[in-house]
Structures are given as C-alpha cells and as structure tokens.
C-alpha cells in the first residue's frame, strides 16, 4: 500500500489524493464534479435494515397475486413469476428468460449481495466472497429493471381498465415498497467506502 492513496474519478478518470472528510460530507471530482466518496455515519446499519426489509417484501411480492382480472364471471390472477414466464407459453423462451433475469434473479442477487457485503464488513469476515459478489452486483446493476417493470404494470392497468374489472393484488403494494427500499439502499451505499472496507478486511 502506498503512503499517499491515489484514487481516480470513476466518471472521467481524473486523479485525486484521498483524504479523510468530515461525517456527512461528500468529496467531488475537481474536473467533472462527480461524487468520489462520501462519509456517511451509520451507512452500513441503514443498508442492512433496508436489505432485510427488501428481502421480506420480495417474498411477499412473489407469494401474492400482482393483478387480478374479472370479466363475465371468469376470473384470472397473475403472479410475478407468471408475468415473467408469459412469453414462455407463447413460444419465446429467450424473452421469457430475459424477463425472469430482469425482475427476479438480478434483484434477489443484489439484495443477497448487499446482505453479504454488510455482514462481511461488520463482522470482519474473510472478504473474498463479498468482493466477488459485490463486483458482479456492480456489473449486473443496469440489468435489474424493477422500476421499469412497475411502469409496465401501470400501463397494463390503464389499458385493461375499460376492458374488465381489475383487482390490484397485495403483491402490487409490496412490489412498490420493494422498489422504494432498493432505490434507497442504492442511494445510501457509497461504493468507495465499501471497497475500502472490504480491502481492509484482507489485512
């Protein structure tokens, strides 16, 4: 480890020297203004709470029906998994797989990774597993599309509005809550602090 720690801006590559900042403060890039790192007291505890809430909400979202439809005496329910696999029944397994990844696999992977990372830093476990998971979580991040799916649900709800009686299921609300908790966890977590902490665990 060098005496002076050099860090580069993730956005533009400008080099900076790391120095400690006061709690609650943010260090920005001198060239492009991007956030370099933050000092957030209690960040790990908040992320842990949000992750546990997120996992609970995810289970609820999958157990209850997302939407229900009633038309001329017949009734139909849709679960999250059913929506993911709808393309499968239509003979498009690739698109079905893509949707399963986007709204089930990647969000769960992200939640479990956050849990693992926070616990590893907190209890000073060996960091190799957490480093591996956190790396892939960062790489897969754009492929988790919960909020895009939510917009899709809203469009579908309006489209069906005058066709039949629509029942908004319990999973709809837990799904909305899941999106909020995951967005909050992402906004709170400072990747620079996480990498630094994981690296220190190794020493």
């Amino acid at each position: 480890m060098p005496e002076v720690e050099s860090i580069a801006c993730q956005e533009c590559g400008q080099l900076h020297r790391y120095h400690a900042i006061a709690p609650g403060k943010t260090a920005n890039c001198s060239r492009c203004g991007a956030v370099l790192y933050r000092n957030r007291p209690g960040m790990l505890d908040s992320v842990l709470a949000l992750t546990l809430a997120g996992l609970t909400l995810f289970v609820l979202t999958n157990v209850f029906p997302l939407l229900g439809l009633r038309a001329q005496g017949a009734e139909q329910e849709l679960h999250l998994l059913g929506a993911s696999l709808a393309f499968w029944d239509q003979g498009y397994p690739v698109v079905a797989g893509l949707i399963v990844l986007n709204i089930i696999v990647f969000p769960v992977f992200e939640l479990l990774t956050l849990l693992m990372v926070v616990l590893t830093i907190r209890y000073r476990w060996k960091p190799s597993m957490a480093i591996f998971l956190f790396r892939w979580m960062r790489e897969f991040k754009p492929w988790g599309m919960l909020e895009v799916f939510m917009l899709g649900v809203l469009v579908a709800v309006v489209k069906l509005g005058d066709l039949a009686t629509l029942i908004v299921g319990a999973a709809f609300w837990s799904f909305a809550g899941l999106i909020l908790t995951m967005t909050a966890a992402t906004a709170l977590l400072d990747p620079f602090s996480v990498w630094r902490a994981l690296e220190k665990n190794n020493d």
Partner: protein
Amino acid sequence: MIKHKALLQCRVCGCLSHAPTQLKRFEVMHCPRCGARVKLAQQSTSVEVTWALLIAAAILYIPANLLPIMSVYMLGAGQPDTIITGVYHLLEAGQWPLALIVFVASIVVPLLKLFTLSFLLISIQRRSRWRQYDRMRLYRITEYVGRWSMVDVFVIAILTGLVQFGNLARVDANLGSLSFAAVVVLTMFAARTLDEHLIWDIAQQEEAQA
C-alpha cells in the same frame, strides 16, 4: 501531479493499479482488488465492438417497428398491433400521458440511443476535443435512459399473462416483441462496451505529447 501514464483504473471498482511493462497481445490483466478484467488502452476494442452492436441494433430496429408485437383477440376476432398502432390505440382511448410514455420509451429512446452512441463513437474516432464534459453527460444520460425501452416488453408480458379467458379474450405475443427485446439488449450492451473514458483520454494523450 501524480504520474498518470502507467496507472490503470478498474472500471468496476475504481481501483488503480500499475500497468505491466510488457503484456502480450492476448494476455489479460485482472484488477488486483475485485478481479474484473482491466484493459490496456492499446488493446481496447471498445470502439469496434460498440459499432458492431450498434449496427446489429439498427438493423433489428426495422422489424421491431414493422412487425406486430402483440395481438388482442376479443370473442375470437382481433387484430395484431405494432408499437405504433399500440400507441395510437392508447391515444384513441384518451390516455395521452401513457401514449406519450410508451411512444418516448419504445420509439424515441432507442432511436436517440442509436444516434447519440454513433455520434460519440465518431467524435472519439476523430479525436475530437469538443465539449468533453457535455459529451460525457450525454453518455451517462443515454446509458441510464436505455433500460426504460424495456417497458413495452413488460406490458406485453403482463397482458399475455393476465388476459386468458378462452374464446372470450386473449392476448398473444408476436415476433415483433422478440426483435424489440433484442434491440433493447443490444443497445444496452453497446452503451456498456463504449469506454467513455476515451472522450477524455484523447485530450490527455495530446497534452502529454505537447
């Protein structure tokens, strides 16, 4: 100033590491901290790969818009919808905010993405130093906005999954949705493979030489 030339930055975790003095053509370097692949500037194929993905996406954009993406059958009779006619039906029903969302997400965003990424690639290839900060912002916005194009595929998934009342009402997915999903995925990969640091690196190389 800190010496710059020999330092490499990992795109995933931001860790800086020293470039090896010698690296064979197909040798791969891994980030010492997170293990992701780190590419040397001279072995970067970012521009070529991004072009290939963009061209593939542009070709698929045509069937994605011309082929029907889903069919709605009511009492056995129904018509297949392309993206445009789907937007039109929403407008007809008086749902203009949703029509606007779907139109922007499904038609404008993919098209803008194809154009902005091509523009950024050309500016990088011409070693342009024009408004680097704005071009980087443009890249960030393009990268972020692209995933929202997926919304129409999700709508089809929800409708086909939900509306199955035998002969009464049925929604089927059509081939256009496959091309459309492919366009979204390809443009997302294109945005990922484009190394946005190239926008800055060119000016830096020239400053170093001067």
